[in-house]
């Protein structure tokens, strides 16, 4: 790869390597296994985990409050009956999508750089889907009846309304959760075998031994493993597009100004990837530093993730422009008024903060130096996370608050419960990520080992 000269005369490789230094399999399994198997953890881990555990308690308290007092306790009202429960749900589902993109789509496209980040991205998907799944259920008002969405034989003789996107949503997210879990667990099997043989204590040998299902790395097993792994990836790729498209149809099906738009499916899917990659970067930057795996999760990974963020972010920006343009071009006074109230109305500060976070800050990523500066990238990723949450909220709230009948206009304000549940779920999500890093290998041992082997072969071949 060609090198480009920097203005200060220093030479910098045009593309940083996927892996820094020479590695071999024993060393990689030793290092990755040690993160899980070592006895004592640094004090920082426990301090951070304690903080997150407090947020888990906040989450549980808020849910209890919501269920016992009722959904009116958080910001919703009539006509704005959808609030943060729906916007956070959409946001969480979007977070999950980057994990599937990294693990499935980049696998199919044979991108070797995914190898060291796919495992925790998949874990991120699972936990984000778990968080997302809670929100619509909590939003139900009588959450204990959520199983009515399932086609179960019952004494009321009722069936789900199959024509409703809300039922499609339930099916899509349940399918997505199951497929993500299978994909993740299957990729874990060979690594669980490594942990099984490395573990010294009886309890861990039993735990990893049972989870590894007797994996022994036979060539026949690997052949079936690979072919089914690729098939699962090929199934997950269209699934992930369908999930967020269906989420967007929840809105687009409704005859509400600001919801009823055909651009929603691609716009939502791009937004999902955008926020998801921002979350991957937000987690990966502290993770690689805390566990000193900067030579495995390299600047190249972050650089590539930033490039995907540019692509997805520009589609999202196009979505904003097209929404505004078609509100005007349609000549529909309700659409126009809704759009106008978005720009200058009660949610204007959110709208403009969203534009700044999602469309303006993003432009800094065009510079290579910004993409490869970890502090800058981290700050930008945080801004995008915030911006995407605001986007979901603005979409959910501004439509119903400026409907067809001015008599029914109303605004929504956030209460402590909105924040309690959102930050509680954020803390629970991160606590799950912490537990995952502690219990399971956060980096795929066998894929990184394979990559290291291929790189050594290539280096020896050129010498």
């Amino acid at each position, binding site marked *: 790869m060609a090198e480009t000269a920097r203005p200060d005369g220093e030479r910098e490789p045009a593309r940083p390597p996927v892996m820094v230094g020479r590695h071999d*399999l*024993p060393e*990689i*399994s*030793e290092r990755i296994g040690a993160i899980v198997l070592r006895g004592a953890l640094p004090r920082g881990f426990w301090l951070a985990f304690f903080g997150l555990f407090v947020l888990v308690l906040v989450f549980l308290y808020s849910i209890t409050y919501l269920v016992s007092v009722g959904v009116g306790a958080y910001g919703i009202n009539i006509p704005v009956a959808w609030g943060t429960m729906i916007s956070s749900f959409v946001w969480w589902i979007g977070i999950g999508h980057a994990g599937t993109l990294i693990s499935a789509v980049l696998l199919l496209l044979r991108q070797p750089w995914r190898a060291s980040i796919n495992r925790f991205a998949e874990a991120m998907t699972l936990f984000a889907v778990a968080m997302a799944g809670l929100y619509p259920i909590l939003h139900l008002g009588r959450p204990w009846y959520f199983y009515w969405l399932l*086609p179960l034989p019952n004494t009321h*003789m*009722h*069936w789900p309304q*199959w*024509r409703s996107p809300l*039922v*499609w949503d339930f*099916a*899509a997210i349940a*399918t997505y959760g*199951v*497929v993500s879990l*299978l*994909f993740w667990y*299957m990729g874990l099997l*060979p690594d669980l*075998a*490594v942990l*099984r*043989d*490395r573990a010294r204590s009886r309890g861990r040998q039993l735990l990893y031994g049972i989870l590894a*299902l*007797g*994996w*022994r*790395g*036979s*060539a*026949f*097993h*690997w*052949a*079936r*493993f*690979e*072919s*089914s792994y690729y*098939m*699962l990836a090929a*199934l*997950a790729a*269209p*699934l992930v597009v*369908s999930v967020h498209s*269906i989420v967007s149809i929840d809105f687009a099906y409704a005859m509400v100004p600001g919801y009823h738009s055909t651009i929603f499916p691609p716009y939502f899917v791009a937004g999902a990837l955008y926020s998801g990659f921002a979350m991957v970067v937000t987690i990966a930057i502290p993770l690689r530093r805390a566990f000193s795996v900067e030579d495995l999760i390299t600047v190249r990974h972050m650089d590539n993730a930033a490039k995907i963020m540019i692509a997805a972010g520009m589609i999202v920006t196009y979505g904003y422009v097209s929404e505004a343009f078609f509100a005007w071009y349609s000549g529909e006074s309700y659409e126009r008024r809704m759009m106008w109230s978005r720009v200058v109305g009660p949610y204007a500060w959110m709208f403009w903060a969203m534009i700044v976070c999602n469309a303006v800050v993003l432009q800094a990523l065009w510079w290579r130096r910004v993409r490869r500066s970890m502090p800058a990238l981290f700050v930008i990723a945080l801004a995008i996370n915030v911006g995407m949450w605001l986007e979901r909220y603005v979409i959910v709230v501004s439509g119903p608050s400026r409907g067809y009948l001015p008599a029914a206009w109303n605004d929504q304000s956030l209460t402590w419960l909105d924040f309690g549940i959102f930050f509680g779920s954020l803390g629970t999500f991160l606590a799950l990520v912490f537990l995952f890093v502690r219990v399971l290998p956060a980096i795929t*041992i*066998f*894929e990184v*080992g*394979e990559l290291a*082997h291929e790189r050594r072969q290539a280096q020896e071949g050129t010498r």
Partner: protein
Amino acid sequence: MSRYGLLARFSGPEALSEAARRLRERGYRRIDAFSPFPVPGLAAALGMRGTRLQWAALAGGLLGAAATYALILYSVVIDYPINVGGRALNAWPAYLVLAFEGGILGAALATFFGMLVGNRLPEYHHPVFNARTFSHAAGGGFFLLVEAADPRFRAEETQALLAALGAEHVEEVAP
């Protein structure tokens, strides 16, 4: 003395593939190879003729989609038909979305469990774990196993052959 077979350790995937191919050429049939990551062409060198997992996935997908659609049709056409302004009971464009999700779910479950069934996993124990050198602790090594049940198996002859093929270490595996 009874034995399950001979386990030979090789330095890397290339040596292992080469040895597997040679053994196969000499008529050995009950052989298996173990590696820490998938080695392209190794299963074929051992005489594996592809998998039937894709058919399992296809069948699972079609079954999942058909079952989902059938459930919907039963509920809206037979069990509880509601005529709303004369609209079609079989509103297929809406139901295809659900059939798609059901199909993906069926295909994914068939793929995953098909892989486990094809590989006979989970398995409580396998004789290869009796070998002292066989461990995944260091990520796993590159091993070739010749079963004693192989018609061409002759203890000394096979051991010498494995050494000649470049094995670093050959060990007997207890049953």
